[in-house]
């Protein structure tokens, strides 16, 4: 049992493509504190993880646990309060605007809302060509690339290229968003609830497409979703967040078949059974996630955890690597001599 590396334990495949350590963002809350102490939402609090080239890292957790904020911080769409982000071996903190822009083009993001992220007054071919144009690609070449990408996402450029966003279905618009993200030849793509708004029949098409494009363009994905089944399908490794903290991370099979954190266990067994003859009879968890403005002391999960003991309120459990390697858990039951009555039994 050892302290996890600051990068989170990795599968030992050399240098990670992305390494995040100590990432933190507290949002001030306006209007609630008349003269009193100013309140903050601890949206992302000392988050560490790494992504290796060619893999898909899934991020799961309930609404408001900090998934999108984590992605936005890494992309520098918002400034972190503290923490390091290394991408392709280079430190991103405090870089100049020009170097940041160059790096950012190699990290792209696809959002959930397919409509609001497209320019309504631009034909979709021009939307896709826009990024390359800004980065100095000649007009004809940018257009040619846009057409190739339209074909890559399964849309015939002759038929669709001159259409406007409102003339497309939700699934088609999401394909445009993906094509646009790929137009700058990124290495890493953050997919933030990228298929969540789509109908199941269309979602399957887009998931197949994402798998194909990953192979074709040598991509690495960070796949954020509240849909636990989709994350299981697409991810190689999974990171579980609760109230701004990483509580567990490991290979997808380990997380889904042998989760060790009580929250991960409850979250996964909250999934519908898919068998009406074997329905869930007892809710795995009671209550809602607590308010992130004033998270519980010690382990943030303790207010809903059925194993919580005195130490859980007093001490924050560290994210520790289990001996098997590549599997990190933040729970006192996993920490030898933590003071929890079940400490160290697990293994």
């Amino acid at each position, binding site marked *: 049992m050892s302290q996890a590396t600051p990068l989170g334990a990795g599968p030992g495949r050399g240098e990670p493509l992305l390494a995040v350590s100590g990432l933190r963002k507290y949002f001030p809350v306006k209007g609630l504190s008349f003269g009193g102490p100013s309140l903050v939402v601890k949206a992302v609090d000392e988050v560490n993880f790494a992504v290796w080239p060619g893999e898909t890292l899934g991020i799961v957790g*309930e609404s408001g646990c900090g998934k999108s904020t984590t992605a936005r911080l890494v992309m520098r769409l918002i400034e972190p309060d503290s923490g390091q982000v290394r991408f392709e071996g280079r430190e991103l903190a405090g870089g100049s605007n020009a170097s940041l822009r160059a790096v950012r083009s190699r990290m792209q993001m696809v959002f959930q809302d397919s409509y609001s992220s497209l320019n309504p007054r631009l034909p979709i071919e021009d939307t896709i060509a826009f990024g390359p144009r800004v980065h100095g690609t000649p007009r004809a070449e940018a257009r040619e690339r846009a057409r190739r990408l339209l074909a890559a996402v399964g849309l015939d450029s002759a038929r669709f290229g001159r259409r406007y966003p409102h003339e497309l279905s939700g699934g088609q618009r999401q394909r445009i968003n993906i094509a646009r993200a790929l137009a700058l030849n990124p290495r890493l793509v953050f997919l933030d609830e990228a298929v969540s708004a789509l*109908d199941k029949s*269309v979602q*399957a098409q887009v998931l197949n497409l994402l798998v194909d494009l990953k192979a074709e363009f040598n991509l690495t994905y960070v796949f954020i979703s509240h849909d636990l*089944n989709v994350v299981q399908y697409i991810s190689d490794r999974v990171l579980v967040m609760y109230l701004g903290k990483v509580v567990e991370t490991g290979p997808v099979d380990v997380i889904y078949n042998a989760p060790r954190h009580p929250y991960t266990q*409850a979250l996964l067994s909250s999934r*519908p059974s898919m068998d*009406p003859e074997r329905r869930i009879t007892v809710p795995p*968890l009671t209550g*809602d996630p607590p308010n992130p403005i004033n998270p519980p002391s010690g382990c943030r999960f303790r207010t809903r955890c059925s194993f919580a003991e005195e130490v859980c309120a007093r001490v924050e459990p560290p994210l520790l690597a289990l001996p098997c390697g590549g599997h990190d858990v933040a729970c006192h039951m996993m920490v030898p001599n933590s003071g929890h009555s079940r400490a160290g039994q697990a293994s």
Partner: protein
Amino acid sequence: MSSSFAVATSAISTGDRLVEVNDLTVRFVSKDTTIHAVNGVSFTLAAGEVLGILGESGSGKTVTLRALMRLLPEGRTQIGGTVRVAGHDVLGLSPGALSRVRGSTIAMIFQEPMTALDPVYTVGYQIAETVVRHENVSWAEARRRTLDLFEKVQIPSAQRRLDAYPHELSGGLRQRAMIALALSCRPSVLLADEPTTALDATVQIQILLLLRSLQKELGMGVVFVTHDVGVAGEIADKLAIMYAGRFIETGPVTPIMRAPRHPYTEGLLASTVHGAMRGQRLKAIQGSPPNLEILPAACSFAPRCPRVADICLAGVPPEVPTGPDRMARCVRITQN
């Protein structure tokens, strides 16, 4: 035929036919277009029974539910067919009679509770007010009933929560308050429009289990709309799969989930991702959902169907029996 989905030949609601819908159609007409939202839906619902309506966005689920309460914009909406709820001819009721039936006989839970709860009043006041209005009881009595309801829907610190405004409650508590509001006048039929879709997984299962136990305890008939087959599997006794405003497959929940017969249901289940599919290519349904401005005189699924043949374009497929209490609207299904 004993199917509880069978189209009744005589439109008399008796015995266990709490809800009886016959050839329901709903169109939205404006000067430049007509939307054919619901195109001939028929079903019956018994007391104590849960019907799950499963379908993708725009298939007509919400419009069907709203038609059962006549909660649709009067001027632009054309409704056809018959809807009988506990003996009332809903589509023929006078406005006064309709508002008495709403709430006390049939009540609805909405997908987004914020739209149903008024932000300027406390949740306790809103529920008590409904009870006073419908049941002519004193405010003290209504408030006591509201507290009972809050306890029944398992809102912790119920007494204190009565005085909370909707925005002061978490998503899960708001949905519980919404359920309390819907139950406040002891309806015999509860309509639930995706009541858990906006909730987190751990909260969703709590609400589903709550609805299931309340439904059993109160013996209500429930129509539960969802786009998530897993959710339907946790709550429904029988399922109706909706596509382009029609029920294209109906029957008891287990056989449909284990062995769907309509090509659309097959495709929908095959494209619903679950763990065992890791590493496999998903069998997606090609194409996109239909345009409801045109009502084809053929199978609406034909343009996307892997089994399409000329016969599919000859007319709207009839109900083909596919097993005990089961039917599918597909002419390519061999009967058994």
